[in-house]
């Protein structure tokens, strides 16, 4: 009866697969440890809002990550200088992949 109904739109972005059961344990949109901003969800990097050497404040958006067609702003959880950018727009990242390193 429900066959014509497709619940997930076909998507060019990603097949988000992470932990065996899905998305448990994700506190928000990012996991940030020791200045390394890591992907908390799988997705495609859309845009990078900073350059190496830029100084950011806590809460500044450093990049956007598209997951399930949602453009998630990824924020710095500490202030500092951008030391390294590990990804480029269009790159698909998995949970735990490093995105940006803040000094």
């Amino acid at each position: 009866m429900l066959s014509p109904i497709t619940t997930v739109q076909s998507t060019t972005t990603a097949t988000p697969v992470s932990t065996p059961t899905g998305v448990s344990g994700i506190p928000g949109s990012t996991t940030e440890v020791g200045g390394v901003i890591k992907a908390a969800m799988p997705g495609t990097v859309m845009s990078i809002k900073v350059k190496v050497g830029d100084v950011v404040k806590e809460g500044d958006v450093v990049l956007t990550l598209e997951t399930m067609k949602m453009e998630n702003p990824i924020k710095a959880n500490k202030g500092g200088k951008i030391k390294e950018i590990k990804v480029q727009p269009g790159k698909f990242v998995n949970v735990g992949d490093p995105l940006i390193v803040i000094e």
Partner: protein
Amino acid sequence: MSLIEKFKELEENRAKAKLGGGQEAIEKQHKAGKLTARERIELLLDPGSFVEIDSFVVHRCYDFGMEKRRVFGDAVVTGYGTINGRKVFVYAQDFTFIGGSLGEMHAKKITKIQDMALKAGVPIIGLNDSGGARIQEGIASLSGYGEIFYRNVMASGVIPQIIAIMGPCAGGAVYSPALADFIIMVRKTSYMFITGPKVVKAAIGEDVTFETLGGADAHAKLSGVAHFAVDNDEECINLIKKLLSYLPSNNMEDPPVVETGDPPDRMDEELNEIVPADPKKPYDVRDVINRVFDRGTFFEIQSQFAPNAVIGFARLNGRVVGVVANQPMVYAGCLDIDSSDKIARFVRTCDAFNIPLVTFVDVPGYLPGTKQEHGGVIRHGAKVIFAYSEATVPKLTVILRKAYGGGYIAMCSKHLGADFVFAWPTAEIAVMGPEGAIEIIHKSELMKAKTPEEVKEITDRLVAEYRSKFANPYVAANLGYVDQVILPKETRPMLVKALDAMSTKREIQPRPPKRHANMPV
């Protein structure tokens, strides 16, 4: 023995019973950062309200030198009292005597309290701190667990059962909490698992610590076994009191109504600003929840587990409601295995205890992938539909933005028996998202396009057409699937009125007689 001597003997025995495993063991308990069973009960109950029973129960094991290790109470303190004036029954395991281990008589004390709580129609609170089965007592301790489990099940859906894990809880012992309604775990001092790190290492060669395997955070974030993780015993006790304030004493009563001082007709202008019109922009659905319900009353449950869904209790014009919402900030708010389990269980908890449901919908669908499909997202996702359909409490739904496909149906749609469905002007109620829909509907037209630019041009045009025609609340409102389209700021007064209208709800459609339904698990 004279009368005075008899009375004195009782006083002495009472003093002995109070000591549990002895002063030295009590100090050890404190050094471990834990309160004793009696201290915990004292904190939990209104001052002077605790009435203890079975203080003089002792075990009757004569093997392995156990006849020499016998203290009054047998490592568990049981009784009843009040919390903010409301009756509760309580048991607290006493780790200071033989590690709080559970034997025949220890179990009998607990089952007696369970029976009393069920007869009285009063919540039961368990404060667990036990090394597990008392091996010396053999299968008598197993029978003890079984008797406790059976009563957990009999009491399920009749009286609230809240269990705090405030020490070890391993092996079969985990299943009594698991059968209860809510589990609270204390960080660093408590853990729960079926088999400990030693057996894990021996059986499958995996190295893992107690904390990683079964600590409070492991269960609050990953397994979903614990509804709350707290930092210490005091925090744990306070949380139990707060949780209880949202629950009725039994399934024949409503939760206590509290005057919150928040006007029922309050309109929050800021609500108009929270949900972006652009469906690609996320937001924190808790900002919506906090503005709609009585100020400061939203009490989130399982906040770290499956954060793509948000559940919790709140008050609406003083009345307790159960809140369920998709969280667009995490995985676009899609449903998956864990969020389905989280929602379904909560819906049933609310329904069992006469707590009306308010559901906020912004769901693009289900999380795709082999992990989800092979993990049984079909089976788990079915629970949400089952739980909502079965629930007979008032069911109110607010569609904030996306309500696509199966996700739309599952999230307490009109079709599953929602009493009122409201939609915001930003709502997009459709069989699927515009991009996906046009790929299917206009496949042949898209195939004709020769260049990627042309594809994009056609796609953009068709998406815009589809969006304006179908991705809105009016198609559903035309059909009566949505009862009213409302401004975001009108949500609170509309929900208050809807709840009032449905406060006397009776399910008029008789349901066929059956032993019980066969919910997918």
